[in-house]
């Protein structure tokens, strides 16, 4: 069975500081990896995803994540955060388990990123 672990439930950082949100997954088969973000009072939005190819994937707002198969990790990083990055971030996986359930997304428990001015 697949599972996702987000070790940090909350991460406070100062504005313009770098941040890393950690994510580890467990799976006996190949997976696809996602980061979703939920801004206050909004729905979940896809931030970035890894399907195949280059292990480093980037979002349009400066976040990046690197797929590390040997460490089964997909940590999310940003070199300089802004107040507007305040949100809850979810790491997630999907992938071939059985044909009927390949599309379901398995989420981690979320990390609340709070930015201090």
């Amino acid at each position: 069975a697949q599972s996702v672990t987000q070790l940090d439930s909350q991460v406070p950082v100062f504005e313009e500081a770098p941040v890393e949100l950690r994510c580890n997954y467990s799976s006996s088969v190949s997976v696809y990896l996602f980061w979703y973000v939920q801004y206050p009072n909004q729905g979940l939005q896809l931030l970035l995803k890894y399907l195949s190819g280059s292990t480093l994937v980037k979002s349009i707002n400066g976040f990046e994540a690197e797929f590390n198969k040997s460490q089964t990790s997909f940590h999310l990083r940003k070199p300089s955060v802004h107040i507007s990055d305040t949100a809850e971030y979810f790491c997630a996986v999907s992938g071939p388990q059985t044909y009927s359930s390949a599309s379901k997304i398995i989420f981690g428990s979320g990390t609340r990123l709070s930015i201090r001015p």
Partner: protein
Amino acid sequence: EAGVTQFPSHSVIEKGQTVTLRCDPISGHDNLYWYRRVMGKEIKFLLHFVKESKQDESGMPNNRFLAERTGGTYSTLKVQPAELEDSGVYFCASSQDYSGLGTDTQYFGPGTRLTVL
């Protein structure tokens, strides 16, 4: 283009009552998913429709939950009778392509917050 919409945004009911949640997917999306986040825990998959057919309902917690998608457009999720542990945020998502591999991007609605007293 309108995103995924959910109604109501909030619902407060008493234990034993019935509640029906509605999801309108993005127009043209054949795939519709329901997820649930119980307070402080991870977001969990409930079920997946392809058009009007249930592709995967492995996450439905028990027979008090009934999901329908008549005509392959909007979907309803009924909880009858509601219990205290059903409280949480119910998310709906939709996607366009179904490769069966788990690679399609799912677009999420804002969620319905259900409180059972």
